[in-house]
């Protein structure tokens, strides 16, 4: 693993961490202000699933890129 690859992983890790922290803030906000029977939790679940998919897909792409070349 070259230093450039490590650099990419670290940068993306920081981005994913920032996303995680913002998600925690959203989670608190929705938990605090949502009303019974509203769509907040469902929308948050969709948001989180999308985010995790993006993070996983990006990591898989970077790893595959190095393995295949």
């Amino acid at each position, binding site marked *: 693993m070259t230093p*450039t*690859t490590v650099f*990419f992983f670290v*940068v*993306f890790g920081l*981005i*994913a961490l920032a*996303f995680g922290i*913002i998600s925690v*803030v*959203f989670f608190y*906000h*929705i938990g605090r*202000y949502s*009303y*019974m*029977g*509203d*769509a*907040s939790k469902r*929308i*948050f679940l969709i*948001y989180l699933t*999308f*985010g995790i998919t*993006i*993070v996983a*897909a*990006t990591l898989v*792409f*970077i790893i595959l*890129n*190095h393995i295949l*070349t």
Partner: protein
Amino acid sequence: MLSIKFQHIPQPVFPNQRNDEKIYVFSRRHVVDYFFYIAILSFLFVLPLVIVPFIAVGVIQVGPFDLVYARDLYALIVGAYYLFLAVVFLASWINYYYNIIIVTDERVVDIYQVGLFSREINELVYEQIEDVSCKIKGILNTLFHAGDIEIQTAGSERNFVIKRVPHPHLTVEIILELAAQAKRGVDLGERVPDLETIGVINSQLVGRGWKGLPVMNLEKNLKATTQRFARLTSRPEKLREKIDCWWRDHCYTMHATFGESGRYEKENGKLKEPLKKPTEDEKADDKMVDL
């Protein structure tokens, strides 16, 4: 060992709601208000897919820069871009969804969400209301029955302007009717709009002949949610109990609104705890509302 305890905490529908306060209108801002964001976010979502070929050509032409790292960089930028887009989506959605107007037998409550961390809750009792008007402007508002409501207040109180309310005409009629009753001196528990449509709950009209409709829909949704959660969790009993508590509270509130307290108890015998029995005052209220 970590254990999670589910505790039943009775929740009012909105903050500072009285126990016997009847809700006639509970409306979020109309979805028309979110159309602009949907259009912008959709465009931004497809943008990287459209410009991929151009970036690919650019990367090849870079020459000395290693193609492997160029691909990594591209994946990193696109990944970060979509994460940012997801954050923008949820923030804008919260900004739209948490604007609520609530009309009860006592007051009008306007919950106004400004961004993510700023929230205003304004209340107005009927005695302060001078006049209520609605304004429907533009094609989208006309097509989708959305409009702004302005409530003029007496004295030095500032006017209320509530944006993009669904069914604004009906909401105005209900507010005017309740305000008129308040000014005639009708007691709190006896105020019921003397109209064909007595309420707007989550954009659904509640008429005299079909007073149970929103409750029935909620029941269906909550049953489906209960079953789905029960399949997903390893401790279905605890979770089911919690969801039953939610349902019981909500059902009680909704039925108190429409005068059918105790219906859930009769139809569903699975509750471990008995339904909260209404007091004599609440029973009297229910009789008055039962149309």
